[in-house]
């Protein structure tokens, strides 16, 4: 069969992937720069294509709680938003993590804090990778750097969410969401039947038959010792995720003397900068974390033995740089370069930053 290629926006690719991956539901609330997700879904009428439920909720708060309700039935549910809306969802995300429910959340990050700007940023790294809401929990965070990855990470994200019964976040930004690129579209997966849902998720609240005890979905335990045990169980799960699910891309690292660490659209900008640097004879490589949690610490730790320094490029005032420093453990200098508030760093600026902060420094 000839593969189907389409030119799509990142936001549209996420929406199409949700339908194709056999998702049961999408609940969301419009916000720039990701409103195309729900617009595309509504235009596609997925209730006719696959029976998927799509609903525009009254708020981001309601939307994430609809996700909770759906996920607690073992259903494949996703939501998307952009930074201010993701902040609103944090309460629900914490409950979802606390109740160990699988779901997918896409954040098309824009500049902040507050209402900020509608233009691209990567300033929600801390929020996404360190918890975000209250309590000790982690999300699995995937960082797409292309529209194809926006598409692919939906199915991968759902798989991880169900494998670990944990919320998964696709951390994109306004560039990835708004740009169009070539996307190879996968085949339509059939949505699970109710019997299959119950088989895959025997813990789901699908109505208590006489053959089992009642299923309760809650994040509450008033007995401190039991809550502690639960927290430690989560730690064990996160440790397993750290061991098994780290993903990253190495670009020209074999002979590199300098490493740029960048994820998402910053990695794309950095690839251009790398070309410019190599044209000047400066052997530069890129480590592109694909999972931000779990973070690819080991590869950075190992690279530190044979390179001269690291520059992180982020559209933030310096967030991932802390994880890179932790990974490198002061073996080599690690500096940060970023533009913020919706300003996008140019490849030339990245070149200058590496020359001044790392080579010159």
């Amino acid at each position, binding site marked *: 069969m000839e593969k189907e290629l389409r030119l799509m926006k990142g936001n549209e690719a996420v929406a199409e992937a949700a339908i194709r991956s056999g998702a049961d539901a999408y609940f969301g609330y419009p916000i720039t720069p990701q409103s195309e997700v729900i617009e595309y879904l509504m235009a596609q009428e997925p209730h006719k294509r696959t029976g998927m439920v799509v609903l525009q909720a009254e708020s981001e708060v309601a939307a994430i709680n609809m996700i909770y309700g759906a996920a607690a039935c073992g259903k494949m549910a996703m939501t998307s938003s952009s930074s201010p809306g993701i902040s609103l969802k944090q309460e629900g995300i914490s409950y979802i993590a606390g109740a160990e429910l699988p779901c997918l959340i896409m954040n098309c990050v824009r500049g902040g804090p507050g209402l900020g700007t*509608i233009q691209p940023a990567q300033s929600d790294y801390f929020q996404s990778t360190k918890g975000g809401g209250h309590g000790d929990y982690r999300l699995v965070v995937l960082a797409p750097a292309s529209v194809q990855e926006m598409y692919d990470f939906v199915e991968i994200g759902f798989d991880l969410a169900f494998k670990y019964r944990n919320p998964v976040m696709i951390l994109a930004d306004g560039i990835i969401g708004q740009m*169009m690129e070539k996307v190879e579209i996968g085949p339509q997966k059939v949505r699970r039947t109710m019997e299959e849902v119950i088989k895959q998720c025997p813990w789901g609240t699908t109505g208590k038959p006489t053959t089992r005890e009642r299923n309760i979905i809650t994040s509450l335990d008033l007995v401190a010792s039991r809550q502690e045990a639960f927290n430690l169980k989560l730690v064990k799960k996160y440790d397993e995720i750290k061991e098994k699910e780290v993903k990253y891309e190495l670009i020209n690292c074999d002979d590199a003397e300098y490493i740029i660490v960048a994820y998402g659209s910053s990695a*794309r900008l950095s690839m*251009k900068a790398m070309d410019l640097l190599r044209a000047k004879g400066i052997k530069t490589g890129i480590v592109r974390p694909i999972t931000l949690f779990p973070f690819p610490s080991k590869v950075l730790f190992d690279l530190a033995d044979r390179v001269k320094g690291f520059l992180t490029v982020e559209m933030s005032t310096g967030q991932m740089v802390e994880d890179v420093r932790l990974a490198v453990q002061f073996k080599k200098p690690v500096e940060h370069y970023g533009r913020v508030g919706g300003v996008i760093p140019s490849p030339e600026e990245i070149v200058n930053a590496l020359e001044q902060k790392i080579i010159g420094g």
Partner: protein
Amino acid sequence: MTEEIIIAGFGGQGVLSMGKILAYSGLMQGQEVSWMPSYGPEMRGGTSNVTVIISDERISSPILTKYDTAIILNQQSLDKFECMVKPGGTLLYDPNGITRHPERKDISIYKVAATQKATEMGAVKVFNMMVLGSYLKIKPIVKMENVIKGLKKSIPARNHHLIPMNEQAIEIGMKEVQQV
């Protein structure tokens, strides 16, 4: 081959759709493509621009500060992007409403009076296709058959009867373009 293009003009001139058809044409002939619109405050001033990259290789940054080609449809965009064309690059513009014409000597400059021509023909809606035709005359990076395929993909099926009109506009643009 990598071609990095900025298309800029007023909102409503079909800047984004021209870029989309160009990108789709590249996709139809098996190339890597990216299409990145401005969606920030610039839109509020009525200007609109899109960066289109067509390449045989994996595309790095979808956002650029230097372009192989600038396709310019208003004065603000000319003022902003003329200096961003790479030395030896190409600038194509429509002189309609332009009071300060391009001045650089180290790039190739072309013009097409597409606004005037489209108005004369009563075909303002395909104005952007004339400009696209002019560009393809200068830089035939995509084959015409792939442009038609791209058009079919970009235009909703209910408007496919308009494709011959678009094709004709592309041909007119190819004829009308002049080197300055």
